[in-house]
């Protein structure tokens, strides 16, 4: 299967007050047509910057290395025309819908603007299409919604409007950056159900960013885990949830309290996540890893095939799957 999106060796650095800072290092993963990939990690691990690199929404002065191939077209360092063409085939949904919608324009204006201005679709037809997608994402009484303003809608409803607007361009790839993090669990279940249905009905590929391993395991085909700007493990979602191979993924899985039982103490990893620019020569997780050896301090592990996926750890497979040191 040829991938719809193929990210290989993606490096990103951004200017800062003390020179250039690496943000992403050798990020590598691919998504097939119609496939969903979860991108999981803690704050600062580079999840959002990976999505922004793919969408071409990087801040000024960003330096990108490696390759991002979308359906056969190289996007890293591409021209503005190529970027525009690719952008109409991928759509973005962000965490906070209220930050990405103009509060003084009606929902109808918001949904039809791009169609009318960029694609010269007549207003009447644009509105008909907006009504259809609102219905698709389960918004009741869509005709009334078109006349309403963002402040009149709840967060869950507004996030559905954002998903509807993403669908209006009929994308092949949906980039969703924590789309349900700000929502209540019952609303999250609703929004995820809508994304899931659309994905199956329209054959959409999905890059789903979340900090919630359980959610990724529930809705994605495969999960990629990021730490300090690198992808450190990719596995089929349920496999990763049940049998994580990388010590960091193991620690992350163990640290989450359980819904079905308690332990007197949660197994914790000492220290806190570091950023890509703080990584010394070796494995980025080495300072916190219970299994670290001299090799981990000196040699940076790269992703290699292991089990059902890939993992960047010198000791993958040799690790005892017992609890990480408490």
């Amino acid at each position, binding site marked *: 299967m040829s991938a719809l999106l193929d990210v290989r060796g993606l490096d990103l650095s951004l200017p800062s007050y003390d020179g250039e800072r690496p943000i992403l290092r050798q990020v590598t993963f691919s998504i097939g047509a119609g496939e969903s990939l979860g991108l999981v990690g803690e704050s600062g691990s580079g999840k959002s910057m990976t999505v922004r690199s793919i969408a071409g929404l990087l801040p000024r002065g960003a330096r990108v290395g490696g390759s991002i191939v979308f359906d056969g077209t190289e996007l890293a360092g591409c021209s503005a025309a190529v970027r525009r063409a690719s952008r109409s085939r991928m759509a973005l949904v962000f965490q906070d819908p209220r930050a990405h919608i103009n509060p003084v324009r009606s929902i109808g204006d918001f949904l039809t603007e791009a169609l009318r201005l960029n694609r010269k679709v007549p207003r009447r037809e644009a509105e008909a299409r907006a009504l259809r997608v609102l219905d698709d994402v389960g918004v009741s009484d869509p005709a009334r919604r078109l006349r309403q303003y963002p402040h009149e809608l709840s967060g869950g409803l507004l996030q559905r409007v954002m998903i509807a607007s993403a669908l209006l361009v009929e994308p092949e790839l949906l980039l969703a950056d924590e789309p349900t993090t700000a929502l209540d669990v019952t609303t999250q279940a609703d929004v995820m159900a809508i994304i899931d249905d659309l994905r199956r009905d329209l054959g959409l590929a999905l890059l789903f960013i979340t900090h919630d391993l359980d959610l990724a395991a529930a809705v994605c085909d495969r999960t990629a885990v990021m730490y300090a700007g690198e992808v450190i493990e990719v596995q089929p979602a349920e496999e990763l949830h049940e049998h994580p191979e990388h010590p960091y993924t193991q620690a992350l899985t163990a640290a989450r309290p359980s819904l079905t039982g308690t332990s007197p103490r*949660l197994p914790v990893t000492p220290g806190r996540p570091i950023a890509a620019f703080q990584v010394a020569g070796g494995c980025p997780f080495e300072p916190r890893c219970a299994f670290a050896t001299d090799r981990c301090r000196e040699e940076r592990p790269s992703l290699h095939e292991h089990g059902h996926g890939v993992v960047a750890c010198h000791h993958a497979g040799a690790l005892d799957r017992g609890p990480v040191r408490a």
Partner: protein
Amino acid sequence: MPEPILRAAGLTKTYGRTTVVDDVSFVLEAGESLGIVGESGSGKTTVARMIVGLETITAGTVEACGSDRTRPARSARERRRRGRDVQMVFQDPYQSLDPRQTAGAAIAEVLRHHAETRTADVARQVRELADLVGLDERQVGSRPENLSGGQRQRVAIARALAADPQVLILDESVAALDVSIQAQVLNTLADVREQTGVSYLFISHDLAVVRQVTDRVVVMKDGTIVESGATAEILDSPSHPYTQLLRASVPRPGWKPRHRTRREPTREPGASHS
């Protein structure tokens, strides 16, 4: 049976014609950890704010450590006593600390105010509290801008404990933390309760976290309590349909998100019961 450390009876809060908390009653026993679970708009934070006196109470009573605190405090001395009994830790460690104050100074301020600690003892007690919540010496000397979210939340917890309270109200206090840091702070909370015997009123939307931290739980929806009991029992076999929905909405492998038949209403401030 000893008197409960905190008792809320028939607590009600209305803004104009909108009722946001409606006849909420519960007790917190000494040394116990009680969870309040609910989604946004369920009124759980308003309950906490009424208990500490950040909101006036429309109807009902609150009693903490054997004294009534339903009406606003009449004197500075009364306010101070109430502050000593019940302390609160908020959700956002980026907004709840003074950016100009070091962690140590923030803790010392509360010690001087509440515990009437002799100046010579303040430094020692700051060290003890920092130890208790797992802050090292460098962190105690740092301003919030140089501390991570997890460290800031430890400062907020130490600061609340400096008043030597009987009850600590934690309002979504670990919600903003990353998983690995959240686990560290949850362990710290377990240590603190074991060592000081303080009671927790733990407000959260996260059922797994609530299971880890609390003994009993009340479930709130639209300003009222729909179910209460031992945390393990409520989460393993919820009897109210809303608790069942909450439980079923938590993602897990093999989970199939499903639509609710009910459509989202448009945004309305709170629930109206008029």
